[in-house]
């Protein structure tokens, strides 16, 4: 089983995310993360999909995506040729007994303290998924109140872009 990062440019239409995720659901593709956002153009949205599976599965995922008329362009982003990042917010109990340890750990990961109260500490960390996993695992030694993470976003290195194509 491999992890694939697939970037998808879609027409910025009402319900387009539903069309994409509905296809994933009905064909039982194993999606571990998905993020969607606006792009450089109001005409398009960009979806980044993290898919776990084998090569045939990945090919099938790409082919099935191509069949959706709202999908304009698809590219598999290889790890070495792209930059990926994810953002996590993590809220911990501000226990005076371990406060210094928590702050030290945050500092070691270069996480930003974005909220601090008598009862809680909130960190923000932007990194690749692996590093975020490590940070969360470390924080499990303390009392985590809440976690929220965005899912990976990814762009190709260099001047290459997701080319616009007509798709029928």
């Amino acid at each position, binding site marked *: 089983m491999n992890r694939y990062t697939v970037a998808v440019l879609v027409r910025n239409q009402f319900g387009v995310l539903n069309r994409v995720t*509905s296809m994933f659901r009905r064909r039982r593709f194993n999606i571990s993360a998905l993020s969607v956002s606006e792009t450089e153009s109001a005409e398009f949205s960009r979806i980044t999909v993290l898919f776990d599976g084998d090569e045939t599965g990945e090919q099938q995922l790409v082919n099935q995506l191509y*069949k959706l008329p709202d999908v304009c362009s698809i590219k598999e982003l290889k790890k070495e040729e792209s930059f990926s990042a994810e953002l996590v917010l993590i809220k911990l109990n501000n226990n005076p007994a371990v406060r210094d340890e928590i702050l030290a750990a945050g500092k070691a990961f270069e996480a930003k303290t974005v909220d601090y109260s008598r009862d809680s500490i909130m960190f923000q960390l932007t990194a690749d998924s692996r590093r975020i996993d490590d940070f969360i695992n470390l924080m499990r030694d303390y009392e985590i109140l809440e976690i929220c993470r965005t899912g990976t976003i990814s762009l190709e290195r260099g001047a290459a872009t997701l080319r616009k194509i007509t798709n029928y």
Partner: protein
Amino acid sequence: MKLSGADIIVKTLIEQGIEVIFGYPGGQIINVYDSLYKYSGEIKHVLTAHEQGAVHAADGYARSTGRIGVVFATSGPGATNLVTGIATAYLDSVPVLAITGNVPTTQIGTDSFQEIDITGITLPITKHNYFVSRAEDVADTIREAIKLAVSGRPGPVLIDVPKDVQIAKCEYKPADKVEKCDPVPPKEIRIAEAAKIINASEKPFVYFGGGLISSGAEEELLELADKIDAPVGCSMMGVSGIPTDNPRFLGMQGMHGHFASSMAMNKADCIIALGVRFNDRVTGDRFKFATRTKIVHIDADGSELSKTVRADCGLRSDVKLTLKMLLPELKKTKHPEWNGEIADLKKREENGEDKREGLTPKNIIQTLNGFLKPSTPVATDVGQHQMWAAQYLSFSQKRRFISSGGLGTMGFGMGAAIGAYFGTGEKTVLITGDGSFGMCLNELATAVTYKVPVVILLMNNGVLGMVRQWQTLFFDKHYSNTVLGRKTDFVKLAEAFGAKGERVDSIERLSAAFERAFASDMPYLIDCAIDKDEFVLPMLPPGGSMEDIIIKADK
């Protein structure tokens, strides 16, 4: 000129060359029906008994003509009644345009009367669907939808139009008829790869499906088979694609396919697959299917390549265009040994054939063959009768076998036969069973109203024969809920609808009944009794491989 959204719907369909619409009116599409009233001289509307009948009719129209079929329905139950028919068209790649009314945009999302999220419901069973929120978008949406439905791998498209959009007025600018998208040719390197595999083959087998018919590549297929000296077989969706009497043609293969066709495909060292998708009814256990065989797969839909069985060479493009590029690259060869093997297989098939006399399924279908013109469309429902029809009917013209393959929709046939009549103007035949016919027989009313000259051959065994066959073979004859025991008098039923009917219990009387039925200009039902324990053979058990084929069954 300023027109209402409803007028624009009808005007745009006329502009796009649509001649007939099947449908059923209702509260949220009443404005469109008012426009139909206004433009009734330019476009015909066929009122069915039920929306399901209407969508099957649009489907039968499309299958028999190759042109898009159009269906109208109102919101809520009208729209949901289309669902089975849209799914039927989707699974068999038939271009159908469904236009539904919906509640006004201000009421959308409030669960108002007869409001349903039909674009949500039909998301996985349409190529694409649209919710139109402005009258200004109506015309272009219809044009785009038609283009989408007929281009590439065809399929159904739905447009949902809220009532206020039907009422709102805007400028209508006529446009040209939309054309199919030009197919993108396959990569040259793939053509070379395919040619290399085929040229190296000693036992090639050409296998085609519905994609060959929608691409219009029959001539290229026959040229290919002649050039590489290969036998030809098809999936059920390919039936009627090439003339049945072509000496290279072994018939349908698969679960209930011809013995020689299925065996030849299994023994081949190279399968050239044209517009097929290697469905489980074709392959049996796909992990045991053609494991030592090279597969060259051509399909308009790239996602079909290596989806169920791996293709050694996959070409994503139009079948006709690809064959035209491929043919010059192929060596003209002869395979006398391979064709000798095929001749032996055909002999074995002939020896094993059902030679009984009397009212057997085979004799019934072959008697019917004597009455069919090349242009006669034959629709079927789903079950044993459908398989017998696919096995024994003779065709010489394409698009004349109209049957629900992928979804296997019982109740499809009656509506489809009506649609095929409106598409072709020909006397039409429906082969059905008492189970399937019971599902949508209300469309007899439509056939009578519009004087559709349809000959209905009802193969009546009083049971749900296909399920019964499985129960006999795999469930220790536990005939759970398959013995109908109904008291329906189908002759009286036909008469009650205003059609004609008669009952037949011998093969001699069947011929005479067909004489009368084919001479009739009204719907004519022949209630033909068959034995409840007839089997469809051969049979590849579900999930089995060619070693498991059942040729003869002990009942």
